[in-house]
C-alpha cells in the first residue's frame, strides 16, 4: 500500500511542476537581436509618401521628420546592405549634457546644428573642416526651476531650420529663433508658465510662415494648447486649446468630425465634470505633420489629467485624439478621438505619416499612425475616417476598434478604478510605442516601427491638484510583456496590416528609426548599440557600440565632400531612461511613474552623457 501512495505523490508532483513551467506566455522564446521573418515585402502597388509633403531629398536634414510627411526617409543610396559593414566613424562631439538626447542633428548646407536637453544649448558645427569644429554656441539660459516640472526627463525633441533661421523650444516654455549663420537671437516668445507646471519639450513645425508649438505637462494638470507664431516676428498668430468651450478650441463652422461620437457643441466642457477641463491635460508634446496641398496641419493630443479615471467621468474631449487644423486660421477641420475617457495614459501624440495608398483603383490620401494604444491606424487625412486599425503587438487593454463608429472597444476586466490595483494591462502606459517616431520607405512601402513590449499593474487613487505639482493619482509598476523581451523593431505592411519582420530587443526600443533609399534601416538600442538592418529582411548588417544608450533620431546627409554620412547622438534618458539620467534608486518599483520596475537593470547597461557620432563609408 505504501508504494502505491508514494507513486501517486510522485506523479502529482511532476504534473504540478510541468503545469507551472508551461504557463508562461505561449510564444516561443525568440533569439534577441535577430529578425524573425513573417512575410515578404508586398509586390506590386504599395503606399507612397504624400507627394506635396515630401519634396525631393537635397541631402540636407532640416526638420526632425525629414519632411512635412514625416517619412524620416533619406533618398541617399551610397550606403547599401552590401557595403554598410564598412561604415566607419568620421568624427564625434560631446554635448556637455547628461539628460536624455531625443533630438536629431540638423544639417544645412555644410553646417550641423545640435539642440541639447536642458539647459538646451544650440551648437553649430562646421562640416567643411575636418573634425567639424564648433562655429558658435547659443545658450538660451532657461530657468533652472523648470527641471522641477518636467515629468519625464528634461529632454528636447529637436530644432527646425527654415529660411536662414533655427527655431527651437526651451524647457521653461520659450520658443526662440536664432540666425543660422551668426548664432544671434532673432526673436524669443514666452509661451508656457512653469508656475502652472507647463514646459515645452517638442520640436516645433515651421510651415506656411508659421511656427507651430504645443506645451507639455499632462501629468501636472496643465490645460493643453497648440500655438502658431509668425515665423518672422515670433508674434502669436493663433492659439487653440484642447479642452474648454468651442471658441477656445477654435471649433467653428468648418469643423466636420467623421464620427458622431466627436460631434456636438462645447464637447470640451460637457464631457468633463465642472471645472475639471481647466486642469484636464490634453497637451501637445509630440509630432506634427503638414499637407501643403490642403494647408492642414495634423497633430495628436496628449492624455487627460489626472490618471485616475474616476475623477473625470465622461469622454474628456478633446484629449487622446488627432486634430486636423487649417494652418493660417487654426480653425479645426476634423478630429478623431482614439481612446475616449482614457484609462491608461495613452497620449495620442505619436508621429503621423502622410501617404497615398492604392484604394480600389485610384490613390487615396491617408495618414499612418502607429498609435500608443497598440493599433496601427490608417485614416483618410481629409475626413479622419478610420480605414483600418490592427494591433501591431500584444494588446489586452482593448478588444479592437469598431470601424463603423470609430470607437475603440475597451476590455471591462482591465478597466482601472480608484481603490483597487488592476494587474497585467498590456500595453503599459508608455504604450505599444511611445513618442519615438517610426520611418516609412516609399520604396518598400513598409513602416519601420521601433516599439516597446511592456505590461503593467495600475492602481488609481484620488489625486489632489496644486498648480505646479504633479496631478497624477496613480501608482504603476511596469514589466516585460509576453515573450520576456521589453522591446521590438517591427517592419509593418500598412496596406495588408500585417507584420513583415520583427527583431525582438531586450530593452524597449526608445530610439526613432531612419530608412534610406539604399535599403538600410538604422536604429539604436538603450544599451548603446547603433544598428543597421536590411530594409527587406531585417537581417542585421552592422552595429556600433556607442558610449551611452541611444534614444536620439539617426539622420543621413550628403556631406560637403558629396559622400553619404549617417549621424546619431547617443545619450540615454527620457521616460524609459530616467532611472539612469535622474540617478533614481532602483529599489522603488513605482519610480518614474512605474518605468523603474521594468528598467532595474539599465544602470548596469548604460551610463548617461550625450555624444554625437557621425559615420561614413571608409575610403
Amino acid at each position: 500500500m505504501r508504494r502505491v501512495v508514494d507513486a501517486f505523490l510522485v506523479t502529482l508532483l511532476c504534473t504540478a511542476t510541468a503545469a507551472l513551467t508551461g504557463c508562461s506566455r505561449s510564444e516561443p522564446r525568440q533569439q534577441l537581436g535577430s529578425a524573425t521573418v513573417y512575410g515578404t515585402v508586398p509586390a506590386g502597388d504599395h503606399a507612397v509618401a504624400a507627394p506635396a509633403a515630401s519634396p525631393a531629398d537635397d541631402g540636407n536634414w532640416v526638420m526632425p521628420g525629414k519632411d512635412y510627411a514625416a517619412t524620416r526617409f533619406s533618398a541617399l543610396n551610397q550606403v547599401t546592405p552590401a557595403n554598410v559593414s564598412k561604415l566607419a566613424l568620421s568624427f564625434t562631439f560631446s554635448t556637455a549634457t547628461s539628460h536624455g538626447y531625443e533630438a536629431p542633428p540638423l544639417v544645412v548646407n555644410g553646417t550641423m546644428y545640435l539642440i541639447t536637453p536642458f539647459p538646451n544649448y544650440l551648437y553649430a558645427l562646421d562640416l567643411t573642416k575636418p573634425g567639424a569644429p564648433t562655429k558658435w554656441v547659443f545658450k538660451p539660459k532657461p530657468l533652472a526651476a523648470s527641471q522641477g516640472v518636467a515629468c519625464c526627463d528634461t529632454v528636447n525633441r529637436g530644432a527646425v531650420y527654415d529660411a536662414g533661421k533655427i527655431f527651437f523650444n526651451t524647457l521653461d516654455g520659450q520658443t526662440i529663433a536664432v540666425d543660422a549663420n551668426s548664432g544671434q537671437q532673432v526673436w524669443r516668445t514666452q509661451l508656457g508658465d512653469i508656475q502652472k507646471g507647463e514646459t515645452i519639450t517638442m520640436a516645433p513645425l515651421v510651415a506656411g510662415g508659421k511656427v507651430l508649438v504645443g506645451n507639455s505637462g499632462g501629468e501636472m494638470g496643465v490645460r493643453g494648447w497648440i500655438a502658431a507664431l509668425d515665423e518672422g516676428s515670433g508674434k502669436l498668430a493663433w492659439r487653440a486649446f484642447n479642452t474648454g468651450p468651442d471658441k477656445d478650441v477654435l471649433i467653428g463652422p468648418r469643423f466636420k468630425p467623421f464620427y458622431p461620437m466627436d460631434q456636438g457643441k462645447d464637447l470640451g466642457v460637457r464631457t468633463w465634470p465642472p471645472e475639471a477641463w481647466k486642469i484636464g491635460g490634453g497637451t501637445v508634446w509630440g509630432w506634427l505633420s503638414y499637407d501643403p496641398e490642403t494647408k492642414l496641419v495634423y497633430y495628436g493630443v496628449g492624455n487627460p489629467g489626472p490618471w485616475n479615471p474616476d475623477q473625470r467621468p465622461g469622454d474628456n474631449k478633446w484629449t487622446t485624439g488627432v486634430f486636423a487644423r487649417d494652418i493660417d486660421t487654426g480653425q479645426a477641420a476634423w478630429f478623431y478621438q482614439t481612446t475616449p475617457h482614457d484609462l491608461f495614459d495613452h497620449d495620442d501624440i505619436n508621429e503621423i505619416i502622410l501617404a497615398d495608398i492604392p484604394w480600389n483603383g485610384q490613390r487615396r490620401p491617408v495618414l499612418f499612425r502607429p498609435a500608443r494604444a497598440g493599433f496601427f491606424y490608417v485614416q483618410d487625412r481629409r475626413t479622419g475616417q478610420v480605414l483600418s486599425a490592427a494591433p501591431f503587438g500584444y494588446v489586452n487593454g482593448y478588444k479592437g476598434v469598431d470601424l463603423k463608429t470609430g470607437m475603440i472597444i475597451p476590455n471591462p476586466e482591465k478597466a482601472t478604478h480608484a481603490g483597487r490595483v488592476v494587474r497585467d494591462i498590456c500595453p503599459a502606459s508608455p504604450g505599444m510605442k511611445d513618442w519615438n517616431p517610426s520611418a516609412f520607405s516609399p520604396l518598400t512601402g513598409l513602416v519601420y516601427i521601433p516599439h516597446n513590449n511592456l505590461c503593467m499593474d495600475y492602481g488609481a487613487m484620488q489625486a489632489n491638484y496644486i498648480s505646479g505639482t504633479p496631478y497624477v493619482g496613480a501608482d504603476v509598476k511596469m514589466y516585460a510583456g509576453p515573450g520576456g523581451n521589453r522591446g521590438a523593431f517591427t517592419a509593418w505592411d500598412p496596406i495588408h496590416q500585417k507584420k513583415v519582420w520583427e527583431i525582438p530587443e531586450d530593452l524597449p526600443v526608445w530610439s526613432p528609426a531612419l530608412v534610406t533609399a539604399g535599403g538600410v534601416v538604422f536604429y539604436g538600442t538603450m544599451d548603446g548599440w547603433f544598428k543597421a538592418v536590411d530594409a527587406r529582411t531585417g537581417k542585421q548588417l552592422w552595429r556600433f557600440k556607442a558610449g551611452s544608450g541611444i534614444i536620439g533620431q539617426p539622420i543621413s546627409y550628403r556631406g560637403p565632400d558629396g559622400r553619404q554620412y549617417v549621424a546619431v547622438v547617443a545619450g540615454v534618458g527620457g521616460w524609459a531612461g530616467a532611472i539612469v539620467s535622474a540617478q533614481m534608486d532602483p529599489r522603488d518599483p513605482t519610480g518614474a511613474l512605474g518605468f523603474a520596475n521594468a528598467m532595474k537593470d539599465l544602470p548596469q547597461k548604460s551610463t548617461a552623457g550625450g555624444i554625437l557620432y557621425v559615420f561614413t563609408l571608409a575610403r
Partner: protein
Amino acid sequence: MSSPWRVSLVAIGLAALALAGCNREERHSRSKPIGETVPAGTSPDTIWPGGTVAQTADPRARLYDNNAPAIAAGQQLYTQMNCVGCHSHGGGGMGPALMDDQWRYGGRIDQIATTIAEGRPNGMPSWRSKLTEDQIWKLAAYVRSLSGQPSKDAVASRAESMSSTTPQTLTPREPAHTSDTAAQ
C-alpha cells in the same frame, strides 16, 4: 489571599515609573506658526570660515523625529501634497531619490524641513506659503523614514495602496553621507 495583591501593586508601580520614558505615541497636532526668527537648518558640507561653529539641535526635532503619529500624518501629506509625483515612494523621478544615503542639502530633520519650506534651485517648490510648520515637520519626519532613519517601531509597514518598496519596518537604516555634488 494577600500575595496576589502584592504582585499587582508592584506591577502598577513599575508601569508608572516607565510612563515618563515613552513619547513615541504622543499625539500633538498644534504648534506655533512659522516664525521668521526660527533658525533654518544649514546644509551639511558648508565651510565655516574661522572654524566650525557648534550646532545646537533644533528643539522641535525631539517632537517629530521618532514620533509614530507624526510619521503617519507625514505619510498622508506626502501623497496628498503630491510629493509622490516627483519623489515617488523614495526612488525619485523628477525629484532626487529620498531612500538612499545622499542628502544634497542635509539629511537632518531640521535641514529637510528647511528644504521643504524654502524650496531648492533645481525645481523643489517652496511650501512655506502652503503648509504650516507642523505639517512641514511631519513631512520631514516621514521623508527620513524613507531611508530608515527613525526607529523601526515608529514607522508603518505599508500604506493602504499598491505595495511598492519593501516595508520600512524591514529596511536597514541608510548611513547618512553628505552630498554627491557631481550629480547636479
